[in-house]
């Protein structure tokens, strides 16, 4: 049996009952949310602690700080993945609420912390759960934080982005240092693994991957619609959401038109062939 199977799971997470009666933890001298803010903070806290991903991602913490060591955001901001993990495990709703106002957005979701964590926590994952909740509840601070990113979001959601196998080159990863980019065998091994991680049926290279197929972007958008991403965004920025829908609707029509034209052309091409053989 694997040793991991011997480790207790769900130690820090709450059951539904526990979440309904949050631990009476009082951080003495700390600000306490009051009024409607307090209510929302408590709601978010309960939802967060009952989220099944909380059970999966937050296992425990030795406070070793190795996650912070590798964290690019920690070098520039008053932010650390270790602190985020501690906040994810705290029984104090205001502490979670405060972290969700600004801190959670310092993370660039590089997942280095997860690679380092000796307890096996999914720190990047639990940060993204906090982000999701802040978007779902349309927090004013989140609206403000994300406002400058409307343009990137528009492009990302209407066009998408692609990775191609030939992007995994030492030249593109100079910041990894000579160890990773030099003649060292480690680079060959790890870059090989990364290349294999890209599905081969994409079959794109850096030259062709900039041209995104209309069909793919429509399919992507369909996923946003079906999985509730769009509804989530609507709560935060209704104008942007409507604009995205307009763009995609237009593209859908164009796509249908093109399809119709294409079908006619094919039929026209087939016509003479058919009469010829007939």
């Amino acid at each position, binding site marked *: *049996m*694997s*040793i*991991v*199977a*011997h*480790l207790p799971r769900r130690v820090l997470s709450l059951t539904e009952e526990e979440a309904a009666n949050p631990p009476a933890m009082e951080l003495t001298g700390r600000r306490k949310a009051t009024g409607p803010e307090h209510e929302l903070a408590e709601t978010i806290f309960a939802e967060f602690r009952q989220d099944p991903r909380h059970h999966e991602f937050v296992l425990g913490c*030795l*406070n*070793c*700080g*190795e*996650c*912070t*060591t*590798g*964290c690019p955001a*920690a*070098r520039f901001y008053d932010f*650390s993945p*270790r*602190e985020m993990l501690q906040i994810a495990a705290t029984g104090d709703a205001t502490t979670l609420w405060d972290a969700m106002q600004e801190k959670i957005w310092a993370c660039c979701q590089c997942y280095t912390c997860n690679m*380092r*964590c*000796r*307890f*096996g926590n999914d720190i990047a994952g639990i940060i993204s759960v906090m982000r999701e909740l802040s978007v779902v509840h349309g927090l004013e601070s989140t609206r403000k934080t994300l406002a400058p990113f409307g343009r990137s979001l528009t492009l990302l959601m209407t066009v998408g982005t692609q990775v191609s196998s030939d992007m995994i080159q030492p030249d593109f990863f100079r910041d990894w*240092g000579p160890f990773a980019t030099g003649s060292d065998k480690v680079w060959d091994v790890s870059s090989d693994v990364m290349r294999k991680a890209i599905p081969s049926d994409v079959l794109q290279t850096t030259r062709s991957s900039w041209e995104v197929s209309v069909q793919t972007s429509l399919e992507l958008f369909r996923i946003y619609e079906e999985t509730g991403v769009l509804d989530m965004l609507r709560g935060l920025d209704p104008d942007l959401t409507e604009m995205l829908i307009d763009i995609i609707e237009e593209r859908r029509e164009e796509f249908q038109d093109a399809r119709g034209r294409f079908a006619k052309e094919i039929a026209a091409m087939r016509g003479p062939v058919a009469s010829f053989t007939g």
Partner: protein
Amino acid sequence: MNPILVLGGGPAGLSAASELAALGAPTLLVERESYLGGNPVRWHYSLLAPDLRPAEEVIGALLERVEGDARIERRLSTTLTKAELGSHGYRVTLATADASETRDVAAVVLATGFDHFDSRRKFEYGYGRFPDVVDFKELEGMLHDNKLVRPSDGQRPHRIAWVLCVGSRDLQVGNPWCCRLGCVVSIKQAVEVRQKHPEVDAYIYYMDIRTYGLWEDLYWKSMQEYGIKFIRGRIGAVTLAEGGSRLLATGEDTILSRPTEVPFDMIVLASGMEASAGTKQVAELFGVPVGPEGFLTPRLTDLNPVDSGLPGVFLAGAATGPKAIPDAVTEGMGAALRAYQYARD
């Protein structure tokens, strides 16, 4: 009486053998290496915590008792390749490089010990890549030979860091257990360094300090009397600094909650303890249950930590988990007594 087989010539095995001889039992001590003494001799341990007595003195006393006793038959460079349960003990096959023989033994004491964790597996510390990142067993050798110098250039280091829990308490390498000794040995090493070279700065990076029981005294003294600095948090990566002449340790000071970068001349890794290759091998030969950590599991860890639960098979020392020398010696005595009782009845 057929002899009682003691497998492994480290502290636990030596203790078991000398105790068996004292009880008047013929004893067959088998060791796979060409010398007796186990890891302390193999790695030239210097002073032993917590009394700071030279390892040679401690292990030497055990060796003397075993080597000076005619009732103990010693077989070096020998391994066990087969074991079959008979009506009165086991029929075992012993092999050297060029010969093998079959012997009947009345009972068996497994004292096959541990191996140090291979620190190369924590690649972010650069062990095996940067010569001045050393394993603490290598530092033991340096201290023992009174040669505290950087392997890269033979110069005396000005500032040394110890990193605790390397390959212990770490799921990344699949070893979530505590090594029990890394803390006290590292603190002891830092004290030893400061005693001999007060000009050398010593930093210990830790998650928890586990100088359990009376050993706590050494921890307190290390701060009070030797000015050793403790940083709560781990080094997470080692790179080169100052044109490659020094090491740069990146970590988090978890008390101040900030990432830190400190240049060091030498970094010492407190590598953990794993069940030795020999321990894994005898587990298979005798069918002794093995826990998820890879160590042998006694039948009753609380009431009788030296009985395997199999007829005539007894356990001692680090084969059942990380252990300090005094504990290994005590278990050697316990296992000897139980093996003697079994052989006699």
